């Protein structure tokens, strides 16, 4: 049991180090570093598709991370940085699609389906309760 715990602890430490190894670069200002961390987790690696920039060691991800650091250091806002990358790589680079009329169906459809499902469930429950009431009445009239 103790050996297993030691093994798990070692694996966790190793995993932490591996995550660190993907992007060892840091920004001098902690506030910029915090924004940088958020940005690289919200943006996709355009070559590996299902990894964020933070998780990918592909050349292009390394270069885009450097570009983000340069833009942050130059005083550009998060919105400007995202806007620049979207203008080059399309919205594909965003893990979280923008709120826009074009994407309204994407954000609205789950809510619509939830409301639809709820309405169907209410209707079924209502119909079943009517059936039960009728049976009760039938039981009363014909004991």
């Amino acid at each position: 049991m103790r050996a297993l715990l030691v093994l798990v602890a070692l694996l966790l430490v190793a995993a932490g180090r591996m995550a660190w190894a993907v992007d060892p670069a840091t920004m001098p200002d902690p506030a910029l570093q915090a924004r940088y961390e958020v940005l690289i987790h919200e943006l996709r690696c355009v070559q590996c598709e299902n990894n964020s920039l933070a998780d990918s060691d592909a050349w292009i991800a390394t270069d885009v991370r450097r570009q983000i650091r340069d833009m942050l250091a130059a005083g550009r806002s998060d919105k400007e940085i995202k806007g620049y990358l979207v203008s080059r790589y399309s919205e594909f680079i965003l893990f979280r699609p923008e709120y826009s009329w074009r994407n309204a169906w994407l954000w609205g459809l789950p809510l619509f389906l939830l409301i639809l499902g709820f309405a169907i469930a209410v209707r079924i429950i209502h119909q079943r309760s009517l059936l039960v009431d009728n049976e009760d009445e039938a039981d009363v009239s014909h004991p």
Partner: protein
Amino acid sequence: MKPRFLVPLGVFAVLVVVLFVGINHSREVGVLQSPLVGHQIPDWELPVLTDPAKSLGSRELKGQWYVLNFWGTWCYACRAEHPILLQAQRDARVQIIGVDWKDENDLALEFLAKLGNPYSLIVSDHTGNTAIDLGVAAAPESFLVNPEGVIVYKEPGVITAETWKREFLSRVPPQSSAPAATPGAS
């Protein structure tokens, strides 16, 4: 069976058809569409591979049709594309400018000496900044740029003999020859 039980089945069938058609006929299957198509190419200027003291950029190429082809000696797909580019250069309808991306100059020159040079001129993007500014995700990628500097087409992968004819040559006027690009001193 009551007809109302057929409704979910019908909805399911419609969904299957819609998703099948969507997945198989979408232009975006595995392909990143460039938002830059139809817009001015972002200004770029890079050192010439054979003479890094000189540079070439979008300004020098204004007024000419050209293809900007991102490649590298490390890129195996670029080797597959190479014979097509050599043939395209022999056709001489439109000049091809090579961007040697994230590469070493010596390796690039050796590669071209061995396999032939399809490019009017080659520039080097060692930092990868120009690639990002043009939304390049992987090599090879190619942009067809018109004399006004507008990107009229982007090939997000290997150019084949068929795509060269269909997507590139079909957009270039027949009278357009391929004047050699002249680099400027940086």
